[in-house]
């Protein structure tokens, strides 16, 4: 779905006039139109990577906040130029930081907040508030406002409209602008907060933007693993509806693994798992740990201990754990980072999974799931000749960030998915210090 621009050029207003202007607009300027009774979406949109790619002349503008193939390709090329390991994912905050150390003064028009993904605009947000942090820390606060009514071809009938508010500026200026947000959000419609950046940055901004009961959308592949998991634990524990895009990207892995055990004849093997191995790209284990935690939770395993497995490699350390099954037997878990030549967009994408089950008086069953884009030779090696082998290739998710967000906005919940809520605390424990 093509991105949609706001129909009306945004009007730049002094921050103090934003709220009165919108009130006046809806009461007088848009007579005959009603505000869509949908939701408010607040987006933290620093787009550091895109801003640096443009500033250093690696991409053309405008700055939109949307990730596309051109941006990802430019980011992949920049990985080696910045001297980062080949396994560094293009979306990794490390890359944006490294690009930030390079010179360059290219300028481009900044359309963040006005360039709305078609998938999101199709849900007709009542109000879309974008916080667009600029590279220049001393950039003063700019506030822009636009109203829009969906075109008939977008499914609109012209009667239900929304508005767009953009707050742009340096970090200090955006902090000042936070006071504007609450009156704009209101309490009559659900509010979603999409933290479309690293979870390491601006924690006080995150706290201010996403108090309960606002529904939070984050990406636990962006940020240090400990911070990502701790934040999920804290927010879910506090009762907030949390949606993790990194968890959603596990969908095809969970589906593929469940499919192996759909035939009832295979199910008993789940009672006899003795070993679980997961390989991930680079040094971001959160996605792999969430998958392991989901399996452990679903199978009722109890965590005995967890530990770091030093590798001495640039790709990072591994993680190990021992679980106890419901029958008291042990399960050995290992998560290892593996170097890859062409990493996927997000850090810590899964490369492969191996689950070995050893039922009594039956041949062992070895389940191997491999990523569509890479092999899993490491998991295929060693001692499986006598086992029944179930090997599946997991399709790559083909949906953009915005599509995932749109799915959540299209029919979301005011509570956290119970499977994620159960997996997160366990994943946090698996991430041994």
């Amino acid at each position, binding site marked *: 779905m093509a991105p949609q621009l706001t129909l009306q050029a945004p009007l730049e207003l002094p921050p103090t006039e934003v709220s009165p202007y919108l009130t006046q607009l809806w009461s007088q300027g848009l007579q005959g139109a009603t505000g*869509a*009774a*949908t*939701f408010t979406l607040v987006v933290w949109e620093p787009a550091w990577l895109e801003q640096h790619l443009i500033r250093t002349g690696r991409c053309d503008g405008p700055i939109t906040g949307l990730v596309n193939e051109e941006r990802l390709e430019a980011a992949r090329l920049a990985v080696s130029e910045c001297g980062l390991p080949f396994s560094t994912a293009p979306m990794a905050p490390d890359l944006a930081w490294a690009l930030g150390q390079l010179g360059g003064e290219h300028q481009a028009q900044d359309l963040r907040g006005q360039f709305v993904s078609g998938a999101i605009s199709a*849900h*007709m947000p009542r109000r879309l508030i974008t916080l667009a942090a600029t590279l220049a820390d001393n950039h003063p606060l700019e506030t822009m406002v636009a109203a829009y009514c969906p075109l008939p071809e977008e*499914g*609109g*009938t012209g*009667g*239900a409209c929304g508005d767009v508010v953009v707050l742009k500026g340096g970090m200090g200026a955006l902090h000042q602008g936070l006071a504007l947000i609450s009156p704009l959000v209101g309490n*009559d*419609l*659900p509010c979603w907060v999409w933290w479309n950046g690293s979870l390491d940055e601006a924690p006080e901004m995150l706290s201010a933007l996403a108090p309960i009961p606002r529904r939070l959308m984050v990406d636990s592949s962006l940020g240090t693993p400990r911070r990502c998991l701790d934040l999920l634990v804290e927010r879910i524990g506090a009762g907030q509806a949390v949606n993790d895009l990194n968890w959603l990207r596990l*969908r095809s892995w*969970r*589906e593929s*693994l*469940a499919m192996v*055990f*759909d*035939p*009832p*004849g295979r*199910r*008993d093997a*789940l*009672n006899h798992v003795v070993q679980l191995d997961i390989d991930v790209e680079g040094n971001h284990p959160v996605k792999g740990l969430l998958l392991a935690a989901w*399996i452990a939770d*679903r*199978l009722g395993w109890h965590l005995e201990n967890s530990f770091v497995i030093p590798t001495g490699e640039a790709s990072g350390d591994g993680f190990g754990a021992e679980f106890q099954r419901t*029958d008291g037997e042990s399960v050995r878990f290992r998560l290892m980072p593996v170097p890859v030549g062409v990493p996927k967009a997000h850090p810590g994408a899964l490369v492969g999974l191996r689950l070995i089950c050893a039922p009594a008086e039956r041949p062992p069953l070895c389940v191997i799931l491999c990523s569509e884009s890479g092999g899993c030779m490491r998991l295929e090696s060693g001692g499986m000749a006598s086992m029944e082998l179930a090997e599946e290739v997991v399709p790559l998710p083909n949906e953009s960030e915005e599509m995932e967000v749109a*799915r*959540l906005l*299209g*029919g*979301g*919940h*005011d*509570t956290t*998915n*119970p*499977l994620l809520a159960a997996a997160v605390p366990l994943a946090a424990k698996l991430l041994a210090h």
Partner: protein
Amino acid sequence: MNAILTNPLRVGLRQERVISPQCIVIFGASGDLTHRKLIPALFELFRQRRLPSEFAVLGCARRPWSDEEFRSRMATALGEEVRNHQSAWEQFASCLFYEPVDLEQPEHVVRLGQRLEVIDRLKATRGNRTFYLSVSPAFYGSGCRSLAAAGLLADPSRSRVVIEKPFGRDYGSAQQLNKVVGTCAQESQIFRIDHYLGKETVQNILVLRFANAIFEPIWNRNYIANVQITAAETVGVEERAGYYESSGALRDMVQNHLTQMLALTTMEAPGRFDPEAIRNEKAKVLQAARLADEQEPWNCCVRGQYSSGGSQARPMSGYRQEPGVNTNSTTETYVAMKLFINNWRWQGVPFYLRTGKRLPKRMSEVVLTFREAPVHLFDAAGGSPTANQLILRIQPDEGAGFLFEVKAPGSGMRSRPVDMHFSYDESFGEPSDEGYVRLLADAMLGDPTLFTRSDEVEAAWRLYTPLLELIDDSPWQLPIHPYESGTWGPGASDNLLANDGLMWRRP
């Protein structure tokens, strides 16, 4: 061995499509279908987290119930389901509302619109509405008109109407109803429900045919000798005598359920998996279908009516002795017929359809019998080789079987038939969702693939018009053959196939 009954990794994975915030409005909320099928289906969707938090059900009927009374009645009706999931029910019940509405009263419909606006604000349902007409068919047209007049169908992207069967009584009335409904809403807003299409196994006909390269090349007149479609029920008319007396098996089962199975079995491959592409192909094949003898339909159709039967321990009364049934009733509880499809794929292949009440077994299936091998090289254990059969079991024991000849063990070269068996239970182990779960979700998603389009409905009625006219105008030409309860229908039905040198498959 500690067996795991369900796949613990499967839990929570049925979230592939997201239902938008919305309010489903059920007209006829005090009726049987609401508490037996609709509310249980919605509760199941809720428990699977497939409904958004911004969701509401507004029950509407003439009875002056309150929200609380509606909730309490639904809780009572769901019984054990509620007791087993008490906390989920409490959350779900908070989404249930009730509004006394008589669709014939314009002021009631205006009040309904106001109530919906209140619910929109309360539950943030965004003005998305699915109106479910679970009312007497006589009110389908006027119900749609009332909704349209109140502006409740004005936005095609946000409002849709689900209409239960029967959609019309014959070709003329279906055309008329389509015309009325078409003036109230766009075709994309109309969801004519046939719960058979909600069954996994019925949908599997499409997947089996079009996801496997091996079937399609032989799925035609060159390889298939005949097709039998059966929907057998063990129950009698039960409490539905009032409705059944005026419909009979032809209208109640054949025109919709069996015809949908026929369409899915015989349609051409759609160019893409798209609702309109699929419905185009279904409509086309139904337009090509004809009774085997349209001029003298009594030659290709048998009607029957169950008489008493059963055993001394469990006697079963005859249809005419059922409460609410006319003692001289000529309503058919069994019907069998022969059809042809006049197109390149199916020319000359007979299709035999049968359905009945009080038959020995509850089952639905589609059986494709292939042509015999051109030369019989081997002696067959049964005298002559059994023709290959592909059996699509719709219910129960959902799955498919393939009957083919193999060498019987021993020193000779005798052949005997064996059955290759696929079972949903054995392969997936999870019970399929009830048809209404799937169809309600699809209606709320605005996906019409599994709903019947106006031209399909009309083509289906047109197909049976010669029979319906005969039944209405000169029923003696299509007499009712009595059959004993618990048997496979009247002998005349067997003769229908015997005339072609065939017999019904005994499942």
